[in-house]
């Protein structure tokens, strides 16, 4: 059921009520049971995120390469905070735990794409690019 929820979310953008109903029907459980499971997992979202979900790791290995400063920079630049999206729905931000890129820190993930050795300049360019990207 967990991969089903995640892959469905990728299609729809978030886990909507209709999606819960549909998955409950297919798996043969109640919508409440689906809801109970999905609230446990940090990658599953009940509310829409931005088209580009920017996830900045600030866990220990990234922190030692000043990931906390990158996080502040991104919040400041976009004018949004943790798990918030820009007004046009283009970009959302999330401060995440270790994403398994610790030796190439600091690391950022945009949707499923990894960015390694992120500097302040690279982050700036990345965000500018996402603002314009279709």
């Amino acid at each position, binding site marked *: 059921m967990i991969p089903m929820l995640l892959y469905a979310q990728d299609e729809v953008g978030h886990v909507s009520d209709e999606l819960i109903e549909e998955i409950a029907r297919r798996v043969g459980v109640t919508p409440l049971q689906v809801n109970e499971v999905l609230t446990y997992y940090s990658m599953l979202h009940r509310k829409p995120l931005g088209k580009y979900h920017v996830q900045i790791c600030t866990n220990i290995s990234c922190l030692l390469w000043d990931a906390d400063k990158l996080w502040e920079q991104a919040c400041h630049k976009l004018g949004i905070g943790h798990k918030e999206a820009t007004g046009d729905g283009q970009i959302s931000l999330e401060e995440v735990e270790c*994403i398994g890129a610790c*030796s190439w820190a600091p690391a950022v993930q945009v949707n499923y794409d990894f960015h390694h050795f992120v500097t302040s300049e690279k982050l700036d360019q990345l965000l500018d690019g996402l603002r314009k990207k279709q």
Partner: protein
Amino acid sequence: MLYNEPSPLETRVLSRRFGMPNSASIDTYLATDGYKAFLKARGMKPEEIIEEVKISNLRGRGGAGFPTGMKWSFVPRNSPKPKYIVVNADESEPGTCKDRLLMEYDPHQLIEGVLIAALSVDAHAGWIYIRGEYRYLIEIMDKALNEAYHKGWLGKNIQGTGFDFDLYTHSGAGAYECGEESALLESLEGKRGIPRIRPPFPAVVGAFQCPTILNNVETYCAVPAIIRDGGKAFADLGVPKAGGTKLTCLTGHVNKPGVYELTLGFPVMKMINEVGGGVRNGKKLKAFIPGGSSCPILTGEECQDATMDYDSMAARKSMLGSGGVVVMDEDTCMVKAALRIMRFYAHESCGWCIPCREGTTWLRKILTRFHEGQGTRSDIDLIGDLSKNMLGRTFCPLGDAAALPTISIVEKFRQEFEDHLNGRPCPFEHAGHMVTV
């Protein structure tokens, strides 16, 4: 393209195909001794396979270091139930990024390791549980599985040997706790990742109530070499009670961070100075985490004669852990490090046990206060006491994983906590502060 330059000090057994052209393809794999170990194992008795793994002194690479051969021998082979093989590819221990490379560059090595494990307990199906963030790896693994099915290395009657095996990938969806073996099995069954009470252990009652072998990616990846070259050759690479090599993720303040395959027993200082090119900017080594944020921290002095193996780390009251080495230079604020580590555990606690759920949240709050200069002298002891009260009082080891590093930081770097007292700003902070806590 590799993520980092290899080091000449590496001993490349599991990573020997890294960097080869098309290293992930089955053709490259077959052209470089691939699947030979499976055919050899097919000619061996199950007990002989397990004996070879025991001789190799292979210990689990997921963090706990349990002897792999012994774990496999616990599976009741005569049980009428089906037996399953589960691969733990949840890789979420902060500091760890090695399983990723094993799957990206050499997915067939993992498949072959799983097949050999299956032969040893007569299993016919298995899953690779991959963390949700590693979507591109799920795609790489699925492609490799397809190739293997297509060329007759998975499915019915593998290579005419009469052995059947099906292997599937399964995605996680963001939960550190799902790396814990019993929580992983719950998640695999479509539930919240709340651990199970043990015993019974997964070897006896695992996936879908059936006997199950559950190991880390790197553990399975070591198996083809063990069967191909013999357990003794693998054992000889390491130290007496721990054989082989370990993929070590050098992270933090080193000049050349990266993943390197080093023999067990590799000296810590040689690893930092020669493999990692020394501490960044010529600074001094202040602190060292041997294998992921769950391990008690060592001071620079404690590292001087330490080696990267289970016994050397145990003698220093730490653990070899998962291979996620974190190097901290003299400018690192240890209060901030303790806070960031605790924030992680507070976020990831599944909430089942009160000491873990409340303890991690409380500690996070105290450490936050402390880092902002609002702590009191009695808070220093409170941090230690609270952590000690979590030890051994929880259903899974996450509670201990949160407490142990914290206790070690307070004990070994008490002065830094004192320096944060009386409303003084963090002495290490040049600009900015932690925004969200």
